[in-house]
Each structure stands twice: as C-alpha cells, then as structure tokens.
C-alpha cells in the first residue's frame, strides 16, 4: 500500500490490484511495462496524478484517464517518462543513424546527392542540432553529401527558441567540453548559443502531424525522428499521423520513435528493423500484394 498527502489533498491509497489495472492500461496504450519491483516508482506517480486531478479515489481517477479528460493520458505518460529534452538524448539512435541507416540511404543515392533528415516534433531544437553535431563528429562521409535537416513542431514558440539556439548547461550535459567549445559560445551565465553556421543550416517550420494537407509539404525524407508524440494521440489520430509520416518518407526511408513507442502498436505500414544500436521502422521499398 502507498499513500501520502499530496498537494494538500486528502491522502488517497492505491492497492496492488489498482496498480496492476493501471499498469495493464499503460502497457496496452504505450508498451511501457512496469512490474512489482517498480511499485514505489509507480505508486508515487499514480498518487501524484490522483491528487493533481483532485480525484477522490483510484476509480474516479481511472475513469478520467480512460476518457482522457483534459489530456490526462498525456499527463500520466509524462509522469512515467523522462520528458526533459537535452542534446544527444537517446544517443543509441544517433549511433544507429551513422552506423547503419545512412549507409543504406546513400546506397540508393547518386554520388553527392541530397540526404534529407526530419526531426518532428523538434521542440526547442535540441534534437535537430544534435543530429547535425553528431553527423559532423561521427560520419566520415559528411562532406560528400548535401544534407538537409528540417526541424518541425506545432508550437511556434518552441520553434522560435529553436531558431535562437540558446541552451542552459543542463541541456548540454551529454556533450563533451570539447564539443561544446566547438559548436557553442557562452552568451550569459550558464547559457550557450549554438554556432551561427549550424543555426543557419537547419530549417525550422511549423507542422501538424495529423493534418494531411500540412504534411503534404514534407516529402522524400530519408530519416525521420518522431519521438514521444504518437503515444499521446488517440487511435484515429495515431493512424492518420502514421499514414502522413509514411507519405513523408521516401521508399526505404527510416523512422525513429521514442523508447516507449513501438510502431507495431501504432501502424502496420512500416517494417521493423532490428539493428545493433536501435530498433527503427522502415517504409518498405515496394508494396506486397495479397493478404
């Protein structure tokens, strides 16, 4: 049992059965699997959400959750995942990009052809800049191709911050001092601005993943990073977003999702590719007829 005073609300206790019920819901919804050895972690977050929604009981909270009142699913998932954005987050996918994905991409390209990479949603820009820096530091063919990196988000305030490219030390925690010195300059106490050359190299645009007309502007990408957003959508929106993303990729293009997402839960349109550094999803190069 767990329970505590949270946000001044009456203490709500959760039972093992209630926690199991929540975990099953969370698993079905996101693929995130929690078992009894994480009880303290789960209880704490669950009790926080019960208090935050002013629910009188688990049952009342579970009803709010299942109906997704005030985007409660998003709040709960946020409580269970690390939402902080920082440079080189999920570095294994960046490693996968340079160790496998780009090799496969350039096999289909003419010498010196263009490689298109899309970060959506890009929030305040950490991900597209991380991709650029990672390529500069880790891909030997970086100067042999024209590489186009686009960062898109639905939030125009985030896009403005991305274009400005100023970050606190915490966002840079995964970067070596060497890399920081090469690509950033200090602008204020504990704040750094990314190199102007890099800022000018990346295009930031507004995009809505579930708006087909909006997404029709984005085509022929070779790699798309689309992390930690699809799990927040309802079934219908998730299908629409997956179909839009399919159209945004070129045949054989790859999509990288967040660690708590699997495309098999989201759409059968993509093929699962298991590489040593990461599991990514691929738009097949051709359709296969039949059932």
């Amino acid at each position, binding site marked *: 049992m767990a329970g505590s005073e949270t946000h001044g609300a009456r203490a709500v206790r959760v*039972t*093992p*059965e*209630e926690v*199991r*019920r929540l975990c*099953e*819901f969370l698993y079905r919804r996101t693929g995130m699997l929690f078992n009894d050895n994480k009880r303290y972690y789960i209880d704490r977050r669950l009790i926080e959400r019960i208090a935050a929604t002013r629910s009188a009981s*688990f*049952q009342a909270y*579970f*009803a709010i959750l*299942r*109906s997704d009142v005030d985007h409660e699913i998003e709040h709960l998932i946020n409580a269970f995942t690390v939402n902080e954005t920082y440079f080189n987050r999920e570095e294994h996918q960046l490693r996968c990009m340079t160790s496998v994905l780009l090799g496969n991409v350039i096999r289909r390209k003419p010498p010196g052809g*263009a490689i298109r990479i899309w970060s959506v949603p890009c929030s305040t820009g950490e991900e597209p800049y991380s991709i*650029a820096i990672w*390529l*500069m530091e880790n891909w030997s063919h*970086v*100067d042999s*191709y*024209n*590489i*186009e*990196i*686009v960062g898109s988000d639905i939030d125009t305030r985030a896009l403005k911050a991305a274009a400005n490219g100023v970050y606190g030390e915490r966002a840079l925690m995964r970067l070596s001092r060497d890399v920081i010195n090469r690509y950033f300059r200090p602008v204020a106490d504990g704040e750094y601005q990314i190199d102007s*050359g*890099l800022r*000018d*190299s*990346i*295009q930031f*645009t507004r995009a809505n993943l579930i708006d*087909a*007309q909006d997404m*029709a*502007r*984005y*085509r022929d990408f070779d790699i798309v990073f689309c992390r930690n957003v699809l799990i927040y959508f*309802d*079934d*219908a929106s998730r*299908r*629409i977003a997956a*179909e839009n993303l*399919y*159209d945004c990729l070129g045949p054989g293009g790859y999509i990288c999702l967040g660690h708590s997402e699997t495309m098999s839960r989201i*759409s*059968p*349109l993509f093929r699962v590719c298991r590489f040593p550094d990461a599991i990514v999803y691929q738009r097949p190069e051709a*359709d*296969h*007829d*039949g*059932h």
Partner: protein
Amino acid sequence: MPFVKRDVTARSKDGRPPDDNLASHVAALNSPDGETRWSAARALGGRADAVPALAAALAAEPVARVREAIMTALIRVGDEASVMALLPYLRSQDAALRGASIEALQALPEAILPFMTSLLADSDSDVRLLATELARNMSAADATRILCRLLEHERHPNVCAAAIDVLAEVGTREAVPALQSCAERFAGTPFLPFAASTAIARISDTER
C-alpha cells in the same frame, strides 16, 4: 558546413491545390496502381458521401497498406455506415484482416455501441469473442452492462473468458454478480472461475 537549407514549402507551392472532387477520387479507388488507390483513400477520409465507394474498395483491395488507409478513411467518417462497412471483416478467414477490422472498430466506441447486442448474439462464437474486445474502449458503464448481459447466457467458455478479461480492466462493481454466476456455471472449467475471481478481486479492490 555540409548542410543545405531549402524551403520545404517550395515543393507545395509548385503543386496544385488539393483535389476535393469526389468522383475523381472514387474512380481512383479502382486504379490498377496501388499508390493511386492509397492517395484516393486518404483523400476520401471523413467524407460520408464516399462510404459506399470505400466499402466496395475495401472488399476488393489486395494491398494491406491501402486497406489500412481505407479503414482510416472510414474511421474518420465514423458513422453507422462506416461501422457496417467494417463489420464483415470480423468474419474474415484472414487473421490480419480480422485484426485490422477490430482495431478500426475499437477506434469507434460510440458508433459501434448499437451493434453490440447483435454481435454478442452472433451464431459464430469467434465473432462473439472478437466483439468482447470491442467493448474495451467503451465507457466503463457501457462495457460492464454489455458484457454482463453476455455472461448471463453465453455457453462458450472462451467467449466468457474474453469478456472476463475485458471486465478485469474496465468493469465496475455492477459486474460482480454476473462474474460470480458465470464462475458457478463453469465450475467444471477451472480456468474460468479463476479468471472470474481475479476480475472480481480487481474490481472489488478498486471500488472499495
């Protein structure tokens, strides 16, 4: 810097405005080219007047991804006719198609509600079993009411087990008598009383 910056919107500026002509999209659903059929299905999403054409196309479509797009288009309409277009595939011999139709129908919990009584009374136990899964996304009250009514008379243990599994997640305390009675009826099939007791424990613990 090896990076180039291009105006992503330039591609669309060259293009024509989206074609919203129903007849041309409906005709394109019969194109021999899968890409054309895919685009047509996507363009018809949410158009109630396209449901008959989408339903006909779904019946003939050989490419899985185009079928997905047709089903998404029907979900976006989400009316009674869309549900009726999806329902036949619960009986498909193709497991992938059956699974796809369940997922599509689950996305329409309110539209599917009026069909649940007949689905759960279907003469095919596989259809009844799959129909229990459709209750999972419904409101707790609706799911409990529908599945308890099923448990009162259902004779197939696997259908009961499927209903109990859904009730364990979404059921309310109103389900307890039906679960108890089902456990008694199937006392000779040990896994069912066990499943019912697990569901009762979960529901009762949740609703102390």
